[in-house]
């Protein structure tokens, strides 16, 4: 049994490294992204092997699923822009192999190529030294290190939940999670203020995607609700539920669904900030009876965590789906020449 486990872990490790290498070295960017999604799925297998089912859920939904969708849509936009400007040369160059550009350099000038190769050998040498040093550091660590596990186990009964990971995320280290919600919101604000691409790159989805979204979206909503509820005592929680919710949103967006314009004004903003708003309100309210910021009283901790998590799930789901959508949706139909930065809309 143990031998079998060693064989499995060894094989998984080697496959992960091989997939990472193929992702980074593959000539075609589309292939690279698909390999990266496969890499994320195998990573979640590794999390299960490391006894971390919470991370496995988050990795499968966010690491593999949503990051993959974001990368694919960005690649599609890169190619769309290239096709629109008729810039076929740079388009092919952009998806061409790095080996190709190295070869071109070799043709242009032998001296440059030699310098390039020399630099690569030097880099490989330096990075091997870094890896060897890190490996030495890891192997020379003491084999037993309880870390904070005893503190978590001792205080779990006052945290309001029985899943230690949820307890750490929303009670013991609630500050991290609060700031993380702010990071999500900031990323969306950044994306919204940067992007001015035309939105009509999507066409009609076809029958399969249409049917699939009708079947899958209710199921995804149910799974999100279950993950949210079960997170207090088993693997699950706001982030996993939120990302499943975002997956439902991405599927709907891919199937051509767009929320009605009247939902894109303040209702959308409300859904985006409610997670952070509830979290901050609860954190501040705890200071009123003389407590400290984010100090949840054991009697209400369970209910407060569920409240925060419900709001956070909604916000995370909507934020991640909005990140996938890319540009800021307009609540009213404004003609393109009124959009201020509509230069490229012609």
């Amino acid at each position: 049994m143990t031998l079998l486990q060693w064989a499995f872990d060894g094989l998984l490790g080697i496959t992960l490294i091989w997939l990472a290498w193929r992702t980074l070295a593959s000539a075609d960017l589309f292939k690279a992204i698909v390999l990266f999604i496969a890499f994320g799925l195998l990573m979640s297998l590794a999390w299960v092997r490391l006894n971390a089912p919470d991370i496995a859920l988050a990795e499968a939904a966010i690491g593999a699923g949503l990051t993959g969708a974001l990368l694919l849509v960005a690649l599609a936009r890169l190619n769309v822009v290239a096709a629109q400007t008729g810039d076929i040369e740079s388009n092919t160059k952009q998806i061409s192999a790095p080996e190709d550009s190295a070869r071109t350099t070799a043709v242009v000038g032998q001296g440059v190529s030699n310098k390039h190769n020399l630099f690569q050998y030097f880099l490989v040498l330096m990075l091997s030294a870094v890896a060897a040093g890190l490996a030495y550091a890891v192997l020379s660590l003491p084999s037993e290190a309880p870390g904070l596990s005893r503190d978590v186990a001792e205080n779990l009964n006052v945290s309001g939940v029985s899943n230690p990971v949820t307890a750490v995320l929303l009670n013991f280290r609630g500050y991290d999670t609060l700031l993380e919600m702010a990071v999500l919101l900031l990323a969306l604000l950044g994306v919204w203020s940067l992007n001015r691409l035309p939105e009509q790159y999507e066409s009609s989805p076809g029958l399969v995607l249409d049917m699939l979204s009708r079947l899958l979206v209710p199921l995804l909503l149910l799974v999100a609700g279950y993950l949210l509820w079960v997170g207090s005592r088993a693997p699950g929680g706001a982030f996993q539920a939120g990302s499943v919710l975002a997956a439902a949103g991405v599927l709907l967006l891919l199937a051509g669904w767009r929320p009605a314009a009247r939902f894109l004004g303040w209702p959308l903003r409300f859904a985006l900030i409610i997670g952070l708003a509830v979290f901050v309100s609860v954190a501040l309210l705890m200071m009123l009876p003389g407590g400290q910021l984010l100090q949840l009283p054991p009697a209400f901790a369970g209910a407060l965590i569920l409240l925060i998590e419900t709001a956070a799930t909604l916000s995370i789901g909507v934020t991640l789906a909005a990140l996938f959508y890319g540009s800021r949706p307009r609540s009213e139909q404004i003609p393109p020449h009124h959009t201020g930065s509509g230069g490229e809309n012609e």
Partner: protein
Amino acid sequence: MNNAYLYALTGIVLFTLGLYALIIYSHLLRKILAINIMASGVFLQLVALSTRARPLLDAVPHAMVITGIVVAVSATALALALMLRLRDASGSAELIEESTE
């Protein structure tokens, strides 16, 4: 010595591979992929080393990695938007090599 060290070492190799790709490739999408692979390596090592708390479960690194995964996807989305914007402005999503002369 247990199986977790295998994953810790895998994490180190992933980190180094990502760092190598981050330095040598000039296309920004490849650099973003490389950063994501590096992050996976760091997460893997962090959780693998936290299994030294056995038989207890050290939930703090687990929570940190979940936070990290969400921050990584936010950073990736912002980086991709920046890349598309650079592409609009300069016509190419690749960094220009300076050592052409």
